[in-house]
């Protein structure tokens, strides 16, 4: 059996255990409602076309934030700042749409660039000053969210507030940006007839855009010298520096690409024309869900597509749990799944022993495990690439091909 298959199997097992845990929790809270509601949750996403449209609509930004985190993981960085980059990207997309009146594709490019800029700072601070990127990007999450709020509330042109609905229609609403439908219909991502097919305004081409980006990222990581260099820095910064790779430049670049992905995700979500940006008091969860997506996909860009679809699916299902249960039940299930995938290496070792297809493979895996874990004697230990293990096994898989 191939290593890739074992990875998938390990994820599936994590998902099943997570769902089982969720069911038990539902039973503990309200045993009479647990089974029907759980069943409803599992089937809600395909129960009717509009629901499916919503799954796909939310999956697109999730793929992007998942790619953001996964790309950073591959290069040995932990981008917990996807939420901030997503928010800043969303703001720039909306700014270009509402104020500058650009078409949708230009707005998406703006979101891409804005996300990259928001990722640039943590990367730069890491490269130049060796400040832990986890802390930096958390700080930038808050700074980004608050700055976006301030801008939305205060941006004026000729004495008039421009981001709020008041610029277009008489409206007392002050905590939400203007609807694209009347502000600039050109900036809404084309629906290409899909909205009629799915009978829902949520549906547009964003899911396909996200999939294309995921494929491009896979090619960049696995088939180009640039991607190889980035990954090499993730495995061992010192060794790659010795091999003539500019590690500092690569840290900055990979944080920028990662941030750009999250920013683009923000653009995809808010340019659909169905949601306008609400002034937030808390960080947007989309960025943090990206961490779940990346971990479940074991940082594989292609895997991100499927894990984002899954997470979006059960989140839509979670809404049908209400009002009997809190929809945060879904977050518990996801957290359990991620917790289990944290020791994916262990699960995989057990699995490959259990399946016993190829004895040399099994030995390989069990020997590789401690070696990877303790591999580089790093100056800054936080660098310990969270995905050393899975990434390594994929490398091998590529060689086998």
């Amino acid at each position, binding site marked *: 059996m191939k290593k890739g298959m074992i990875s998938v199997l390990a994820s599936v097992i994590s998902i099943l255990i997570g769902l089982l845990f969720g069911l038990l929790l539902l039973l503990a809270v309200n045993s009479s409602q647990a089974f029907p509601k759980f069943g409803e949750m599992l089937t809600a996403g395909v129960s009717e076309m509009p629901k499916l449209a919503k799954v796909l609509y939310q999956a697109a930004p999730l793929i992007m934030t998942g790619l953001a985190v996964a790309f950073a993981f591959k290069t040995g960085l932990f981008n917990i700042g996807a939420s901030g980059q997503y928010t800043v990207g969303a703001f720039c997309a909306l700014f270009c749409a509402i104020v500058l009146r650009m078409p949708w594709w230009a707005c998406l490019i703006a979101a891409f660039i804005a996300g990259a800029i928001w990722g640039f700072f943590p990367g730069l601070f890491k490269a130049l000053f060796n400040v832990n990127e986890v802390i930096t990007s958390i700080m930038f999450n808050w700074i980004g969210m608050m700055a976006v709020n301030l801008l939305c509330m205060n941006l004026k042109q000729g004495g008039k507030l421009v981001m709020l609905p008041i610029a277009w229609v008489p409206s007392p609403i002050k905590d939400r940006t203007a609807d694209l439908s009347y502000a600039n219909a050109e900036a809404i991502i084309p629906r290409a007839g899909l909205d009629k097919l799915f009978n829902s305004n949520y549906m547009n081409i964003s899911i396909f855009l996200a999939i294309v980006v995921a494929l491009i990222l896979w090619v960049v990581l696995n088939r180009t010298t640039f991607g190889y260099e980035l990954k090499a820095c993730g495995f061992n910064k010192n060794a790659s520096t010795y091999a003539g790779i500019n590690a500092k430049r690569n840290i900055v670049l990979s944080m920028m690409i990662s941030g750009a992905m999250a920013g683009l995700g923000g653009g995809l979500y808010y340019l659909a024309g169905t949601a306008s940006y609400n002034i937030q008091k808390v960080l947007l969860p989309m960025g943090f869900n990206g961490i779940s997506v990346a971990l479940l996909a074991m940082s594989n860009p292609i895997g991100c597509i499927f894990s984002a679809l899954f997470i979006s699916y059960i989140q839509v299902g979670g809404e049908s749990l209400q009002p009997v249960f809190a929809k945060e039940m879904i977050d518990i299930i996801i957290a359990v799944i991620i917790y289990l995938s944290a020791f994916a290496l262990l699960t995989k070792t057990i699995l490959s022993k259990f399946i016993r297809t190829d004895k040399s493979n099994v030995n390989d895996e069990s020997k590789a495990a*401690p070696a990877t874990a303790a591999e580089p004697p790093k100056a800054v230990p936080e660098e310990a690439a*969270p995905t050393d293990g899975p990434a390594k096994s994929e490398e091998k898989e590529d060689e086998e091909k």
Partner: protein
Amino acid sequence: MSVLADIISATIVFAVPLLLVAMGGMFSERSGIINIALEGIMIMGALMGCLMLRWLNNAVAAGQMAAQLGVLIATLFAGVCGIAFSVLLAFASINLKADQTIGGTALNMLAPALAIVLTWVVQGQGQTTILIPDWSRITPATFGLKEGSKFFGSPVVPQDAVTLKVQNDFLQNLFFKQTYLTTLLAVLLFAAGVILLYKTKFGLRLMACGEHPQAAASVGINVFKMRWAGVLISGFLGGVGGLAFTLAAGSGFQSSVAGYGFLALAVMIFGNWKPWSILGASIFFALFKVIGAYASSIPFMPQFKGLEGVSTYLYPMLPYIITMILLILTSKKSRAPKAEGIPYDKGMR
């Protein structure tokens, strides 16, 4: 003057959770385990502490009899629940050698969701705020001071516990406006932490496990045990810190600690993994946080007339920006425990 007293007392009350949680993080990281789950641990501690306070209020009516004893019980309960939650991290990262950052992230996601679900279960559908009973605050009455009796020469003023009306008496504002038992406990815990880390065999061994676990093991130290101890201590301090934060925030528990766990991590790094520096760093951050909150009542702070959301978004940005700048400036001196984040492997020398 009363603004100054407000600022000082608010700084202290917000420095306490940062100090406790950053100390917790320090114990964990000094033993070699990155504890990014502090945020989650704080949430669990705060949840359980608040539920305990609620129960004491409703079932035992502790408010009338021994209010501060009730707070003490709730605080210890929060700590114990923090320990229980941190077991998940310890088990995954020490015994199963899982990636510590991922495990911690999972726990950070788990805690707020679990808190909301449990709050629903206890309080009924859609009730997401656990209110903190009034009696948990230390007031003149705690010391048997009645209205009209003297406190440092001035008569005791009646205080409205709910609205915290601004009083004109400096000392009473300073001591009684927002003082909680957790502040006093934090002083004790900090002292105990310093002694434990630097003056006992246990502390020195713990630090050795974070620097070079194999060397520590070679002289007979049980690295697994030490790391477990480090994570559990951080669980206790994180749980207590979570309750301390919720008391300080004052508006009840809403399944969140507003990123304080992460801020505490930054405080710990800025404090260079050393208790006294962490104390300084946490007071510093709390001061900036409070200046942000009080900016509109401080005469010399710019008010930005004509801008909206200054007090809700502009000034609250301040602590984060200052943190960033300081982390950059002090990065040269920053020295993390060498073996943190690396699972201990006996076979590796």
